[in-house]
């Protein structure tokens, strides 16, 4: 089976089938990463934009790096930009009805979303990558472009903040 790094090299020369293979391999983790970052909003747009950036920059991919680190880095940067955008216009009534028709999330689900949403962006990224994607601190540091010590400190501050918020 071809490695991710071999597949991205083929994508750099315009190979659509290899891109499909790569997408299928990373579809779920990438989709979940973005969904957790944005609380489920604009996930498909950000997912697509991440892959389009991957295809666009495939020729510049450094084969000495792990593909997954690069992919998550692009997605995390896009999510960071997404959080900096001004809030959207009030929703269309039709959208509101569609949301109302969806199954109601449980209290625990709401709590988890609320807790994550309340974290500063840098801490939220560290928690998502470390906790939900089970990545080692070294890889989280590579994705976030900071030293390992900074990741540890962000995780610690995130934990303190979450404990405070979760306290009844």
């Amino acid at each position: 089976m071809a490695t991710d790094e071999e597949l991205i090299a083929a994508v750099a020369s315009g190979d659509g089938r290899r891109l499909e293979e790569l997408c299928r391999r990373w579809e779920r983790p990438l989709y979940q990463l973005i969904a957790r970052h944005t609380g489920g909003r604009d996930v498909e747009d950000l997912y697509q934009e991440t892959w389009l950036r991957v295809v666009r920059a495939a020729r510049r991919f450094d084969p000495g790096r792990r593909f997954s680190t690069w992919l998550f880095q692009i997605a995390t940067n896009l999510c960071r930009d997404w959080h900096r955008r001004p809030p959207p216009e009030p929703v269309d009534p039709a959208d509101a009805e569609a949301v109302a028709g969806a199954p109601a999330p449980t209290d625990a689900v709401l709590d988890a979303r609320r807790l994550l949403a309340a974290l500063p962006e840098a801490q939220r990224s560290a928690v998502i990558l470390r906790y939900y994607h089970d990545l080692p601190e070294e890889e989280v540091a590579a994705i976030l472009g900071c030293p390992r010590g900074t990741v540890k400190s962000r995780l610690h501050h995130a934990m303190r903040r979450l404990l405070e918020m979760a306290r009844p």
Partner: protein
Amino acid sequence: MTDCDDMLTTLLFRGAPDADVAAHLTACPRCRAERAAVESLARTLAAAPVPAPPLGLTWRLLAAAEPLLARNARRAAWPTFALALAAALLPLPAILLLDFYLVRAAFALLTAILPTALGAYLTFNYAATLALLLALTYAAIPIFVEHQVRLRRQESHA
């Protein structure tokens, strides 16, 4: 960061305590007091739903990526194209020199046996045909290179 911070962060983000964390929890009353809160927080975070990608996501993405893939393919073909063009241009001076002598010989022969105006007209037609053949040959180079690149890619996929 203290040892306690490290241990509690590990407990939260790794789930079940490993030997080091367990030993620390036994020995440290402060961390023991916080353990229940940390484990409760871990349970709350774990309750976050795992969003599933919608059907057809990859197909929509591949359709959107088509122009970018085509651009990548064109860029990847450039080195091959440049090499082929260089190889094709190498004999060009010799071809042009040969054509020049052929046209000159044709002109000399035709004007010797035909009226000058008719000889010049036929020589001009002969020169134009040679120029057209040359242009067609060099115009075929990009098509030939693209075909070769496609074949090579198909071979590598196979």
